[in-house]
């Protein structure tokens, strides 16, 4: 019954976010035009309202399914946060890389980031990983910056 539990949680989160967006974020973040016939808030409200109503219906259906299976949340939450440790580390590594690019420049940080990613994804062989990262990182940087004329902010070494 893990899927029903998961569906109730995901549907509930979406419904809750919809309520927050409708009642708090839209009034704060959408500048209203009082004299407008169809104002800027019309469409976002329509979209959020649809999402919220659908999410509530979805949760009700899933609760009914869970009851039909005679299981409840009291039997224990079949949800493991540890499943997502690798994903959290991966996103944190990427954010760190993006911050580093401002100081080290794109080319150097990309090579360092690529080496760490190769290890993180399970590629074996330190020398092989370093060679792949250096060759690929430099080639990609060269193609985008010199051939396709994409401008990267320079780092400490000017690249």
């Amino acid at each position, binding site marked *: 019954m893990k*899927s029903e539990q*998961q*569906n109730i949680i*995901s549907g509930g989160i*979406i419904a809750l976010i919809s309520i927050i*967006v409708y009642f708090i*974020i839209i009034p704060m*973040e*959408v*500048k*209203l*035009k009082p004299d*407008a*016939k*169809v*104002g*800027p808030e019309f*469409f*976002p409200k329509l*979209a*959020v309202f*649809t*999402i919220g109503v*659908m*999410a509530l*219906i*979805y949760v009700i*259906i899933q609760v009914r399914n869970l009851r039909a299976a005679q299981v409840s949340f009291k039997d224990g939450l079949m949800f493991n946060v540890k*499943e997502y440790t*690798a*994903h959290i580390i*991966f*996103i944190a590594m*990427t*954010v760190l*890389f*993006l911050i580093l*690019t*401002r100081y080290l420049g*794109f080319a150097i940080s*990309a090579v360092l980031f*690529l080496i760490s*990613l*190769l290890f*993180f*994804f*399970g*590629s*074996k062989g330190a020398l092989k990983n370093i060679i*792949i990262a250096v060759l*690929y*990182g430099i080639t*990609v*940087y060269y193609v*985008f910056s010199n051939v*396709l*004329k*994409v*401008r*990267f902010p320079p780092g400490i070494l000017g690249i």
Partner: protein
Amino acid sequence: MEISEVLGQFVDISVIIGLFAGVAFGIIGGALPGISPSMTIALLLPVTLYLPTITAIATLMGSYQGAMFGGSVSAILINTPGTASAAATALDGYPMAQKGQAKRALQTALYSSCLGGLIGTIILLFSAQFLAKVALKFGPPEYFGLMLLSLTLIAGISGKSMLRGIISGGLGLLFATVGLDPIYGSTRFTFGNINLYDGINTLSVFIGVFALSEIMIQLSLGRVELDKKPKVANSNTNRLKLKEFLSQKTNILFSAVIGSLIGILPGIGGSTASFMAYIASQKRSKKSEEYGTGIIEGVAAAEAANNAVCGGALVPMLTLGIPGDVVTAILVGALISHGIKPGPLLFVEEIGSVYTVYISLFLAVIVLSVVGTFGIPVFSKVVTIRKSILLPLVFIICIIGTYASKSNYFDVFVMLFMGCVGFALRKNGFPIPPLVIAFVIGRSLESNLRRSLILDSSGALIFFSRPLSAVLIIAAIVSTIFMVRSNRRHKRKKEA
């Protein structure tokens, strides 16, 4: 000038080299995420200014067709649409590659692109002036009707649960509202950040929800599994058979017609066309439930449509001098710099130039089939690389591609956010295509809806007081009813 005289000018080595170089450059540009077809053509533009007119036009048309196909290469191999138009190709192309049929998927994409491109050119050749007049009749209510029809088709690609599809589509619409309001220009969901004034970058959404979410899903497999050597299908299942391709002729023809017609309408573009063709193909097919699992029908429909857009997009450009998108705007600039002024008078005063464009587009398709055929065996080697190496390399391309589109790291952070959203949705069984389609058409849907309501004091009645918009809206309502009924029938059958 007669068409035979113009054709004679193409028997020149510089023109042929221009076509081949344009197609090859286009494929590479299109395959690289972040380098859009418009950017590819813009990069070629300075070079073409020094070329003779015919060579320049041939090179530009070659790169246009090449870029439209190139986007599918990365969409199929690494689930990263190189261009927005190739997003629909990833829906079936990537699952085919996962099944070890990368070569078959690429061949389907290539030959469907070529046929789609040819059909688009033929439509341009025979109906340019007539279609341009029809396109001019499209006002906000008609655009809204067309967008609404596309949006209702979301129900058809919602997978197992229509509710999840609608929620996913709603999220796409909500993301599309970020930025300056299309009517009043007031800010919405920008949180004081100037980078969001222009809305969420389309590429950040595509790369995030398709590629990054896929990388995160793969990451769940664990390091040992990722470092295993990928299984490669035997050459029989990994090759497109002629009979198999010919069975797609109706699918390709329909999709190409949809692509051409959408291409004619300014501002809609290849991504909407390919999604609409994909959904229309799914609705017609007997295998509709297999769409999204990796079948050639899905790839053929999306690719035929997005290359047919090229011919369609040239209709308003050549006949009215109105560029419908960024690519045609660049092409207008290129033509003007060569002394050709697109517009109604072009067909009277410089019919030779019109023929030059037609023939260039036609030859570009033929050259694309040659270059693509030789390129596919090389491209398809990508799937033989271990995932532990391939995924980090793809991710670097995702980052650099997202950054390259606007030279802004903010877009990369948005891509990361969208990747997490895509991952969370996929993990919980929510389909991604409705989100992407709704995001693509959301802005246009909203602005045309509100413009229509503001234009007329009768309110929503305006949509039914104009025949074309009434037909489109009724079609949207009818198709929704049919889809809901067919979904219920499928569910009951399964339960039985």
